[in-house]
């Protein structure tokens, strides 16, 4: 029988919440090298494509595509993306866009594996590009899995599920 996730101990919940906020701060400050350090060596980082289906089909069929992803990354490809951002020619991020992660409703719970915990929460991301007066927005949910490695937490899986079936960012040159 599948065991239902349960709340984790308050201290762990606090550590995970603090991890999530610190991570957002690193990304907002574009400290990508330090950000990579927060990721486990076998990290999976997935941004799903949402499909609009009729209500009658939803019980049977997922509204999350298993055939296309906005991102499907491992540590190597994330390193490649970070490396790109440090070149002089990453035009999509020059000038760098300004990003804010508005994070809410964090639920930290146990995962299937005893040494891992999971966090589910919402993100409202606001991006400002150059001196354009209009912001870009994207609203999504994250399902993160964390593992303790040598005493500190590492992100070992991130699933991003956008609310919109059409991506509202003109390009994904940042990390969601």
């Amino acid at each position: 029988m599948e065991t239902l996730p349960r709340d984790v101990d308050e201290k762990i919940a606090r550590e995970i919440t603090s991890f999530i906020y610190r991570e957002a701060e690193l990304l907002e400050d574009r400290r990508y090298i330090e950000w990579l350090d927060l990721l486990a060596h076998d990290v999976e980082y997935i941004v799903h494509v949402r499909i609009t289906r009729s209500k009658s089909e939803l019980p049977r069929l997922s509204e999350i595509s298993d055939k296309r992803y906005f991102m499907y990354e491992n540590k190597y490809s994330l390193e490649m993306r970070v490396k790109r951002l440090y070149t002089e020619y990453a035009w999509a991020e020059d000038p760098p866009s300004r990003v804010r992660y508005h994070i809410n409703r964090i639920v930290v719970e146990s995962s299937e594996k005893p040494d891992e915990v999971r966090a589910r929460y919402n993100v409202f991301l606001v991006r400002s590009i150059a001196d354009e007066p209009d912001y870009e927005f994207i609203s999504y949910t994250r399902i993160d899995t964390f593992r303790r490695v040598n005493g500190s937490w590492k992100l070992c899986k991130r699933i991003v599920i956008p609310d919109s079936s059409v991506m509202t960012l003109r390009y994904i040159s940042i990390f969601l």
Partner: protein
Amino acid sequence: MVNTTGVEVFDVIEMPDGVRSLLEEAEKSIEEYRLPLAIFSDPELHRIEQIKLFGRVWNFLAHENEIPNPGDYVRRYIGNTQIIVVRGEDGRVRAFLNICRHKGMSFTRAEMGNASFFRCPYHGFTYNNKGELIGVPFRNITYGEKFDPSKFSLIEVRVETYNGLIFGNLSEKTPPLSDYLEDIKFYLDIVVNRSDAGLEISHPERFIVPANWKVFADNFSGDIYHFPTTHRTLAELKLAPALGTEKAGEGYVVMTNNAHGADIRLALTEWAPQTYKYWWPELIEKAKKKLTSDQFELWSMMNNLVGQIFPNFIFITHAFPIDSRYGLEKGKIPPVPVINFRLWRPISHNRTEVWVWKAIEADAPEELKKLSILVDIRIHGSSGLVFQDDIAMIHGVSESALSPRARDIKLIYEAGMYKEPVKWKYPGMAYYIMFDEHWALKFWKTYIKYMLE
């Protein structure tokens, strides 16, 4: 868009004076290798394009394997017109406007699904998946007995298929798809017709770019000149060093009828190798039989092929490293083969929806199928290392085009004009070294012709 008298909306559309004078000016300036920047911005031009251009060209709608079973449908667009592409109970693919004949409700809201009938949620008019009106609620007390449902089938859109690719045409008067594609079929086959198994195609990735669709189309009409600058990171990351330098140009710009065309990059070095060898051995054998010897020969010589079916559908075949393990420690993971399709859907003069599909032969090894989606995302998707920098440029051009000065600023289309076409044994006409604007000029001439005729 045909009415009962056989007169089409294209025949009666009134061309605003401002649009006509811009197009006529463009027609003249293109002879001198110049193009008014304003052609990327005018809102009135966008409105007329919907009718004169997208109303009469063959528009890519879907791949047959997106709707393999009877009743399967996808909701697609030609410009702002919603189209339901559905496989009927009889196995035939049809397309209908997503507009209820009764009061115009866009009756299907899902992006895809399976339905034996479509019931409009407004008043309940119900159509089968052949488009026939089969149900009118309370028909006798509403309309009386004389009401004839057979007169109110869904409005069918002309659909034709080429090697699995479904195209739709809003006009009844234009030549068939086969004539429209003509010589580009030779190049399209190399991408979509290597195996009898056909293609396995992904769901589309869709995203919105604040830009005019024609800047995308212009960029994909043979503009390789931007590679060494825009895509310099490919060299910096050692992913494809040749593509970030002047070597990127080593290949042929091929133009066929209707301003369809393809860039064909030759295999150069270990960094831009022949990519056919990254397809699996059985497929290569199949392709030898399925393709003509000319097609196979061309495929075997190339590093990649990027084609555009006029005016807004892209087809690509190549192989690319999936992550930094290749770039940092060369050779550890071989390039992964992939087929990519893209579509530029015009929403307004300054808003384009980009659609991206990945495909691979349906008989590909499972492991390769998994890897091919990864390479497609990382290169061609909205997070793609190549495409995101293109979009930055495409947005920038569109932004400039909004200036009132855009009308008298003339862009330069002179690259390669000193050259003669090469002797080319394959269909169409080709120029060597892809820093060349012959194809782009042809795109504009064809565009202007559609708009003015």
